[in-house]
């Protein structure tokens, strides 16, 4: 059964549309991540689902019940905010218990639930402390604790990790994933960080300008993006977009005249003209001694920029008039300015119509 069903949802702020007709169904127990750049409407969509914003049109069903006009407290949802939203004048225990006390649960039940959440999140020794005595990661745990004691049907997370430093973010990401598995509840999570989306999600929903650009499993979006936006947004480092011409019968031709042979039939149904070759950095390898396989183009390039990341290095060079990046093993990386040969795995490339920005 779907835990969340949204139909034609719209929300504007004055004359500025934020969500422009979103249809979305999230099955029970799924971890859905709304991702997109700033201003794409992802937080507005989440807040409208929570009832903190009133929808201008469309409907929201939570657990099979129409919730569009219900007050936030009656929607059976719990939410974790970006800035934690902890009450500085209450102890950790009272912060976690706040929602239960507001709903007038018996004291014994409050203690039981807070104790269970504290155990899950490792908050036991911190229960008598105040938020100001906690680190950022501990505060975020308390905020999550506040949500999970509620035992709600739907959990909403609004960029909960964006205030943490990189290391802590990685750690908390793992904990959130584990928590989802333990609770088995439906999670809806907003982030602008595609790495977070890829690692956490069962389903990624990419939003752009208030509309869903594409949704699917992380792998689906990574391997089969439908638009240039999704192709560029998902994956880090970003996909390369190399301008080229479809040369009938011969493959693709770059602006510098170099030709890239394609497997037979790869261009079937594609009209001659300009295209963009979408190629992930991992699909560009340093050429070995072996001749390239069919569907792989070997080209000589000059290294313009080298960014080592430890075991791997990002090496950039000019190709078809644009900066192109490959991800190589650190020991394979050329020196700056060195000419070296790369193999472009065109079998894994996507071809994009530059007029429509859609994948062909």
């Amino acid at each position, binding site marked *: 059964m779907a835990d969340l069903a949204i139909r034609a949802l719209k929300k504007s702020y004055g004359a500025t549309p934020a969500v422009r007709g979103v249809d979305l169904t999230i099955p029970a127990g799924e971890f859905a991540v709304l991702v997109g750049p700033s201003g794409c409407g992802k937080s507005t969509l989440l807040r409208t689902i929570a009832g903190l914003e009133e929808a201008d049109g469309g409907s929201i069903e939570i657990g099979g019940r129409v919730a569009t006009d219900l007050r936030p407290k009656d929607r059976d949802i719990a939410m974790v905010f970006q800035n934690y939203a902890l009450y500085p004048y209450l102890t950790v225990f009272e912060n976690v218990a706040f*929602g239960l006390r507001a709903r007038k649960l018996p004291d014994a039940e409050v203690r039981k639930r807070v104790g269970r959440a504290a155990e899950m999140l490792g908050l036991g020794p911190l229960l008598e402390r105040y938020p100001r005595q906690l680190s950022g990661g501990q505060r975020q745990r308390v905020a999550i604790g*506040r949500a999970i004691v509620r035992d709600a049907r739907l959990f909403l997370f609004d960029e909960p990790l964006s205030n943490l430093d990189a290391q802590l973010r990685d750690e908390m990401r793992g904990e959130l994933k584990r928590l989802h598995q333990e609770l088995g509840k439906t999670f809806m999570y907003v982030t602008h960080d595609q790495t977070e989306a890829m690692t956490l999600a069962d389903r990624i929903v990419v939003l752009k300008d208030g509309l869903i650009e594409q949704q699917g499993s992380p792998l689906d979006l990574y391997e089969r993006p439908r638009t240039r936006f999704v192709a560029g947004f998902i994956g880090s480092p970003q996909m390369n977009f190399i301008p080229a011409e479809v040369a009938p019968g011969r493959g693709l031709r770059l602006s510098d005249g170099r030709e890239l042979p394609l497997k037979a039939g790869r261009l079937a149904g594609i009209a001659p003209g300009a295209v963009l070759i979408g190629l992930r950095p991992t699909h560009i390898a340093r050429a070995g001694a072996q001749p390239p396989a069919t569907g792989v183009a070997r080209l000589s390039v000059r290294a313009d920029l080298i960014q080592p990341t430890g075991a791997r290095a990002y090496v950039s060079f000019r190709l078809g008039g644009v900066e192109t990046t490959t991800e190589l093993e650190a020991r394979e990386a050329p020196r700056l300015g060195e000419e070296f040969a790369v193999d472009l795995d065109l079998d894994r490339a996507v071809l994009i119509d530059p007029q429509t920005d859609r994948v062909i």
Partner: protein
Amino acid sequence: MTEAGVHARTGTEAAAVPSPAAAGIERPARRLRPRRRTVVLALRLLAAILVTVVFLFPIYWLAIMAFKTADEIFAYPPVWWPGSLNLSNFAVLFRDGDWETVRNSLVLATSSTAIAMVLGTFAAYALERFRIGGENLAVWIISQRMLPPVVIVFPIFLLYVALGWVDTFHGMIVLYVAFSLPYVIWMMRGYIHDIPIELEESAELDGCSRWQILWRVVFPMARTGLFATAVFTFVFVWNDFVFALVLTRTEVVTYTVQVTHYFGGQSNFWAKIAAMSMLGTLPVFFAVATLQRYFVRGLSMGAVKG
């Protein structure tokens, strides 16, 4: 530079001075710096004492005058410290019933502050969170406070005569509430603005009603601001002179007006002036001293973020 900054820098400098043997610094140079530091510190201390004396002397003089006998008050050279702590000046105030004006001030200031705080805080919440009247209404409200009281006291007097409210508690309370409200609304709006909206939204999702949100989130969060604003409002009403002078006669005379009765054409009742002024200072002193913790934090909150 802040006091802490000065100390921190001095500390760093002290730590940075290497031992003479290690650095090869000559003896006179080594001795000069600590001596200069001592002199600077002494001068600073002296300046601080001087400023304190200048500010505290009038209060000291007033306080001891309240305990002096008539002879001591007029003695020349002045008596810097009375022979005994004479309470007769205060006894006279109680015997003649003058103390009732302090009681009147206390009743007016306490009730007006309480009413203005309740109404003003709700109004501020509505302005801030529901955006009632937009920015213009908020600015219009504070602009009311900019009118010099003396400009409108006479129209109000005529109105009060017509209403029969002159020299009544309710008349004075309504007036003081009306005059305190713009300040309370303006200040509380700033403090409420500083409360992250997510705290209220989170409480809403947790099942709190709007009233519960106010009680359980907004008031505790704005506690320091509430106290600071209440103290200022109280002090404003407590110190009011113009309205009380024009709008009271015999029933609700406040202590500020009463003090002026001691200035006569022929002579001034210095003992009563001093004793009454002391009585008049005490409630404010206790209010500020008791709430100082909140008061200072509330003031600085407003200053930084308001």
